[in-house]
């Protein structure tokens, strides 16, 4: 159906260099027939971009290459400059209007009342407090196989090891959580577990019974994984998975 789809299509720079990814993508003539609204605007934008690209190709003395894309300048750079300016402006504004207070320097000769790592390490600190899970072995006369502190360090090894092998477990092509609800649920339970284990590490400061908090640390991730799976499974209906597959399966130039 597409007029680009004939055998004499050229991708060596002599033609437009545009190959339809598949049979459902509208051909140039079909785009041109759209006369109103957003589809017209889209056509005009693409047509102008294509024309500028063509002019540049004809003017330049560079060797033509097979590139199915828009040039980074100005299409991508203008957006990046806008985003960068926004965030730099935000940093300047906040640091100018709300400068953080400089507290007194730490006194190295006094032990603070509460010893905690930085907040982003709370999850690791919480894994050191899994003593109640350390099994007593009756053959050892009720004594534990390893000390609670050794057990906590091993728990860190297990969790970090699991995070490290996740990319090798599943490197699927999904770009949205709805496409693979199970793995999205696994990831969600991991995120929630990192929060609950962080809350466990500061259990003295959490206004809750510490045994209940310990149980919730492991129950809430499972519950959230179940909810995530159910919600994503419900959202699957009517979702256009083909869009991604089509995008990543562009026909290579001949």
């Amino acid at each position, binding site marked *: 159906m597409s007029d680009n789809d004939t055998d004499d299509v050229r991708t060596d720079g002599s033609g437009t260099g545009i190959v339809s990814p598949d049979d459902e993508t509208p051909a140039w003539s079909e785009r041109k027939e759209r006369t109103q609204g957003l589809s017209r605007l889209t056509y005009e934008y693409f047509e102008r971009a294509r024309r500028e690209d063509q002019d540049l190709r004809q003017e330049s003395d560079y060797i033509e290459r097979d590139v199915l894309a828009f040039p980074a300048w100005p299409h991508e750079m203008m957006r990046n400059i806008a985003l960068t300016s926004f965030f730099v402006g935000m940093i300047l*504004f906040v640091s100018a*209007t*709300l400068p*953080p*207070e400089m*507290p007194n320097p730490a006194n190295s000769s006094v032990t603070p009342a509460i010893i905690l790592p930085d907040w982003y390490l709370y999850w690791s600190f919480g894994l050191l407090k899994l003593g109640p899970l350390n099994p007593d072995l009756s053959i050892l006369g009720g004594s534990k196989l390893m000390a609670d502190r050794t057990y906590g360090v091993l728990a860190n090894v297990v969790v970090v090891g699991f995070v490290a092998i996740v990319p090798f477990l599943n490197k699927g092509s999904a770009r949205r959580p709805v496409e693979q609800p199970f793995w999205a649920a696994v990831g969600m339970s991991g995120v929630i577990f990192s929060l609950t284990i962080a809350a466990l590490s500061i259990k003295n400061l959490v206004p809750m019974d510490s045994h209940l908090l310990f149980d919730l640390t492991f129950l809430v991730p499972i519950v959230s994984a179940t909810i995530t799976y159910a919600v994503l499974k419900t959202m699957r209906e009517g979702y256009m998975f083909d869009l991604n597959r089509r995008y990543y399966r562009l026909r290579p130039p001949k």
Partner: protein
Amino acid sequence: MADEFMKGFACLMVGGLGWMTIKGWYNTPSFEGAQLTGELTIEEPTTFDQIALFMGDAFFWFAVLGALTFWVVLPLISEFQAYLNERSA
């Protein structure tokens, strides 16, 4: 719909940023105490302080009412108009 969302979001962000700044100046007594909601840190507000305090309230209500307007009120009105058009057609 996306435009309406962005307008409401812009109101929320601009108002929230202004509110946070002014509350950080006037209602944050100490770094380790109440943040943004603490007691007023000045005894006798000058004219500029009064303007700033007024602007803090204005930013707050701009954030709340702006988001409500673009996310709730205007979509409701357009839905209602579509409903009326559908009935009369």
